[in-house]
């Protein structure tokens, strides 16, 4: 495999129950690249994110997922996280009784397998919270409990910033947010997009193009990528919709 190749999805077919969702999907992401997946409702965009992270409800019928050259089809969710995959949830879970700070430190130690000294961690947390304009008192609040939609999404990006994955999958991080919240989140991502970090951004909107310059835009329709192009492709979608891509 190519040294730069981070993720390779090969003829992936996935079902949930008796419903086929992904029907032979191919995708390659190199280190440092940003890919955008766009598509109509029900095309399989969120399924792709969940399957990459190993959600147990989805069944891989055929095909393979390679991450850093390793076939990860058989790996548990946490093992994938430890290898550098991260999924930002469309609907983040609320975990009462566990503060944002404690959860993030626990996660950081779980992902890296190393102890994270508390002072060093607090410094890092403050930096990232400032970047995402999250008030400091949020670190003492229970994870996502009582958070608005925008706060939950910001918290997802905060987690991404702390855990520092190799590939971040952002599942409709911009949905349900007002323009100001989208701006803060995408500007945060823009700053966090450094070095070899790669992104797979699942979105309905091309607003992201104002902040992130994607290397590729893919159109996902009925479980398959039907077209791949540059940022211009997203603009065409804005003008023409998905009808032209449906066979």
């Amino acid at each position, binding site marked *: 495999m190519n040294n730069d190749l981070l993720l390779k999805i090969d003829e992936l077919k996935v079902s949930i129950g008796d419903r086929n969702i992904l029907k032979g999907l191919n995708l390659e992401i190199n280190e440092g690249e940003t890919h955008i997946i766009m598509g109509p409702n029900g095309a399989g965009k969120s399924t792709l994110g969940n399957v990459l992270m190993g959600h147990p409800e989805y069944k891989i019928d055929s095909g393979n997922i390679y991450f850093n050259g390793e076939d990860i089809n058989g790996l548990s*969710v946490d093992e994938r996280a430890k290898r550098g995959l991260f999924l930002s*949830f469309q609907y983040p879970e609320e*975990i*009462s*009784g*566990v503060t944002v700070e404690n959860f993030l430190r626990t996660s950081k130690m779980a992902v890296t397998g190393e102890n994270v000294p508390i002072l060093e961690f607090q410094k890092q947390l403050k930096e990232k919270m400032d970047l995402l304009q999250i008030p400091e008192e949020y670190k003492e609040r229970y994870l996502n409990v009582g958070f608005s939609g925008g706060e939950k999404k910001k918290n997802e990006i905060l*987690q991404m910033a702390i855990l520092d994955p190799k590939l971040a999958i952002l599942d409709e991080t911009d949905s349900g947010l007002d323009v100001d919240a989208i701006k803060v989140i995408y500007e945060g991502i823009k700053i966090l997009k450094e070095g070899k970090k790669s992104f797979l951004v699942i979105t309905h909107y091309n607003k992201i193009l104002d902040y992130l310059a994607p290397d590729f835009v893919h159109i996902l329709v009925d479980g398959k990528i039907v077209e791949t192009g540059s940022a211009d492709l997203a603009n065409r979608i804005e003008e023409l919709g998905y009808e032209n891509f449906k066979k």
Partner: protein
Amino acid sequence: MLKNYRAQNIKEYEMLPNPYWKRINEEILFPEKVLDYNKDIIAEKNFDNVMDVDEELCFKYIKYLELDRNYGLGEKFLRFSEGLSNTGLFIDIEAGDKGNRARIDLNIDSENPILVDHNLIICRENSELDIFINYEDDKKTNGFHNGFTKIYVEKGAKLNLYKIQNYSQEIQHFDSSVIFVDEDAEVNIIDVQLGSKLKGVNYDVGLKGDRSFCDIKNVYLGTDKDKMDFNYDINFLGRNSKGYVESVGALTDKAWKVFRSTENFIKGCKKSEGSAKEYVILLNKDVKSHAIPALFCTEDDVIGDHAASAGQLDGNKMFYLMNRGLDKEAAKILVVESSFVPILEGLPEENMKKTIINLVKDRLGGD
């Protein structure tokens, strides 16, 4: 008088058959002989009026000791403590005396394997008392504990009671409490039940006075083949009285639990309000969980509700946590911790919460 009081109770105890708890399919066997208990149970206190039980004291307090009906886990348990107790305390807080605090250790070890306590707590008018009771053992003694505590909280008084039971699986644990709450008086209880292979816990509260208040919160854990029976009864008698029960637990392995709670609104308790809620996380398909909430009402101007729910581990929550690098066991423990913490937040000291969370992690096999 003590001799008569105890002798009469022993006589009644001996005539009673061993209870059979059909819900958990268990006959309760009592020790053949109650040995002396030679440990001091008061670990810490900042007031003087704590008394060891003697004949004169029982005579003085007889009207508080003799109850109008049977309360608690059942007659056999009550008579056992009243007749054969080998330790116990009478606490009588004077009217208006505030800031009182005591820590009591009801511990079991190889020298003291049988612990039978009989206690009386009286908080006189407008007094305040915080009591912490810890239950520990040496983790190697096959032991037995039965306790019976009678509590009177008089007009305007406030009692906070915190119990943390962390016995090993070698211990059987039975605990009955009857609590009478007068006008404008308040009782807050946090009862944490982590250990013991066979346990029965019973609270019977009488909200006698107008605007009386009682809040009982319970956290429990069942592992291995633990069997447990929890019962929380609140009787609403005074007007505008408020009584709440909230229980949160987790069961794993082959643990077996029964939760009962009865809200009894008695005619005349107008404008009273009560609720009983139980939520249990089932960590394993082999556990058994019974919830029996009940509501009786002979007064129409009240608000009462109850709810009980049992759920497997939330798959989406587990997926979310594992996404952040936590393995299945760590994620499971975090979900349990997350359900316990809102109740443990009510403990007055942060380190108590941390200690309990660590005990839960240990018992569930975490780091």
